[in-house]
């Protein structure tokens, strides 16, 4: 109604709350509030919100399985379940976390919500395809969960042949579920690429794209190029399991190592499907809370594409002890070193962004700090794992488990949580509790370290992964890991509770509580049906905070548009 400059706003110096800032005519009430209006919606924001709910449920299920694993490993012998149950539990943990949570979490959830807004578009290019993608996700999840409930799968999420083609458990439904979810992933990626190419608002050149878009764009490229290969591979395994066609079956002259090639051709880039969106979120967060332009925009933007491209050349580093040739080992080893560089570029640029900034230590920023540490340590241990002779010792031990959890939980989940806190005011129009947020962040970061640093040491000692029982010398570190996991889980439960409270009773956040110059903050919170009151035109980059840019006053100082 009236301009609400910062000086008038209540709240701390970290964010500005605005009691009048709840935009009533938003996407949550328009075009309707009934169930049908959600199930048939073509609005990218609603689809994004449905994805966020879906992946959060998947995260809870996967987390529950994780706690079962840690509980079982509390003692060296059998603790709470038998070996077969344990094998099913860790398989389900992997399948649920990777296919149902990690891959869709940030791109399909936050990406769907914010990509069109950041482009100044009204929607994604193909809204119907977008809805189809969501239902394919649900269908795939349903098929996979059917397989898990009726029979379960004990192959591990990697489905290595010939184990997966000879096991008596129900592998085929889980494979088909992953196959269907793959198509969901492809459709989302396709949609995002086309949207980025064709629906940018006037003035939004490639050089002005928000870094979140660059990250999501690079992710989409991987989804498009890698997912079909794994789809076909999973189908081949299913055909072999059901009908004995024998493409990977050593008894019929097939080569099981070929399966590993195909599988990792997707699954290694899939790691970047998981981490690139988190990096994209962090690029936004670091600028917003340092209130400064990113140090080296081009470096950060192009390194996303670099990761997407070079990430495809490294899959063989999962096969160093699989009987792969030493020649291929060398090629994949050296190429892996290059993919580490792109991550290093990002890390240094984020750090340098803080230089001469105005840094606010809020919950999203706390997750940024955690993210940065986990990414550096997880990333460098990843490069260390590609150092061939070291990998021979570490391969398939808890060192690998700890490494990829540093990247996937450490980095990706930190990115997810940072995004959740950063954008919650935009999505719901309400603010979470900053005090509880910081408490939970500290618990999560510390609990995480206590869970996985012992696992690095277990790997050094030589404890192989997927072990149901273990010699007693591994006991102490396993107990430490389980203890850490409990703290981590408790922290996540706290996040869940205060987020739900905030959605219902949180203080009104207003248009731009963080004083960010990201494009998504130019629209009211929650955003209206077609994202902007009038189609926007951009005359500046998204991360420019310098006061020598008079053409672009801080958004919170701009006059509020009229609304009822």
């Amino acid at each position, binding site marked *: 109604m009236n301009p609400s400059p910062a000086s008038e706003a209540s709240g701390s110096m970290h964010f500005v709350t605005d009691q009048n800032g709840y935009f009533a005519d938003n996407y949550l009430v328009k075009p309707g509030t009934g169930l049908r209006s959600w199930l048939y919606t073509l609005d990218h924001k609603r689809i994004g919100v449905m994805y966020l709910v879906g992946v959060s449920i998947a995260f809870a299920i996967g987390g529950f399985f994780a706690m079962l694993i840690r509980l079982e490993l509390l003692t060296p012998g059998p603790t709470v379940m038998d070996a077969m149950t344990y094998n099913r539990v860790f398989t389900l943990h992997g399948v649920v976390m990777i296919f149902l949570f990690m891959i869709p979490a940030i791109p399909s959830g936050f990406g769907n919500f914010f990509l069109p807004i950041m482009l100044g578009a009204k929607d994604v290019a193909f809204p119907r395809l977008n809805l189809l993608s969501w239902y394919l996700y649900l269908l795939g999840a349903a098929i996979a969960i059917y397989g898990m409930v009726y029979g379960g799968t004990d192959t591990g999420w990697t489905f290595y042949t010939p184990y997966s083609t000879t096991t008596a458990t129900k592998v085929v439904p889980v494979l088909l579920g992953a196959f269907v979810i793959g198509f969901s992933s492809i459709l989302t990626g396709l949609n995002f690429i086309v949207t980025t190419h*064709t629906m940018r608002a006037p003035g939004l050149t490639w050089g002005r794209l928000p870094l979140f878009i660059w990250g999501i764009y690079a992710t989409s*490229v991987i989804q498009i190029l890698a997912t079909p290969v794994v789809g076909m591979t999973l189908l081949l395994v299913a055909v072999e399991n059901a009908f004995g066609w024998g493409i990977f079956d050593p*008894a019929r*002259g097939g080569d099981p190592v070929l399966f590993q*090639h*195909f599988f990792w051709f997707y699954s290694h880039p899939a790691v970047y499907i998981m981490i690139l969106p988190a990096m994209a979120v962090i690029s936004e967060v670091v600028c917003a809370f340092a209130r400064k332009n990113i140090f080296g925009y081009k470096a950060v933007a192009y390194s996303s594409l670099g990761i997407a491209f070079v990430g*495809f050349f490294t899959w063989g580093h999962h096969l160093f002890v699989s*009987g792969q040739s*030493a020649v*291929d080992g060398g090629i994949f080893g050296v190429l892996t070193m290059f993919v580490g560089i792109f991550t290093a570029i990002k890390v240094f640029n984020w750090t340098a962004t803080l230089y001469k900034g105005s840094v606010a230590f809020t919950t999203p920023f706390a997750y940024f700090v955690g993210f940065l540490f986990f990414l550096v340590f997880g990333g460098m241990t990843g490069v260390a794992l590609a150092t061939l002779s070291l990998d021979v010792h570490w391969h398939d031990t808890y060192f690998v488990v700890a490494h990829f959890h540093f990247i996937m939980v450490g980095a990706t989940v930190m990115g997810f949580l940072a995004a959740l806190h950063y954008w919650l005011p935009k999505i719901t129009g309400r603010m979470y509790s900053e005090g509880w947020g910081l408490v939970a962040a500290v618990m999560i970061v510390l609990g995480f370290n206590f869970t996985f640093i012992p696992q690095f040491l277990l790997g050094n000692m030589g404890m192989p992964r997927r072990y149901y029982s273990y010699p007693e010398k591994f006991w102490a570190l396993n107990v430490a890991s389980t203890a850490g996991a409990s703290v981590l889980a408790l922290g996540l439960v706290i996040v869940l509770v205060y987020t739900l409270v905030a959605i219902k009773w949180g203080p009104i956040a207003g248009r731009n509580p963080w004083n960010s110059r990201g494009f998504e903050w130019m629209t009211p919170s929650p955003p209206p049906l077609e994202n902007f009151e009038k189609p926007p035109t951009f005359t500046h980059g998204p991360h420019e905070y310098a006061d020598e840019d008079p053409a672009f006053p801080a958004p919170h100082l701009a006059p509020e548009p009229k609304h009822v």
Partner: protein
Amino acid sequence: MAVSESHAESEKLHHSHLGRYVAVLAALVVLTVTTYLAAKVHLPAPWNVIVALAIATAKGSLVALFFMHLWDQQGANRLVFATSLVFVALLVGLTLADNATRFPLANPPGSVGALPAPEYVPPPQGGATYQR
């Protein structure tokens, strides 16, 4: 950029390409017959595949460039298609390179080079047995 590009794409499609299509059809038929005849000649081992694939690539390029109008289109569409072909080469090339250079006995028994060479004593169990 995007707008002008799509303008150009539409403009080009408005011209009639019928003559060009006929020429491409003729070339495709000729190349198909050529590859069939080349296969009859029985070239030495690697060359038969190389010739067959070279002709197939020529035919594929004709289809992609003229029937599918990549010749007329700029930028993104070409890039997308070219990128997918790069990754085809990547997957085929590096998996094949692995099989060609690994420890020969690690290839399936009965395949090229995997038969026990003289310097390897056959295993005492009388060969690898694998039972389901």
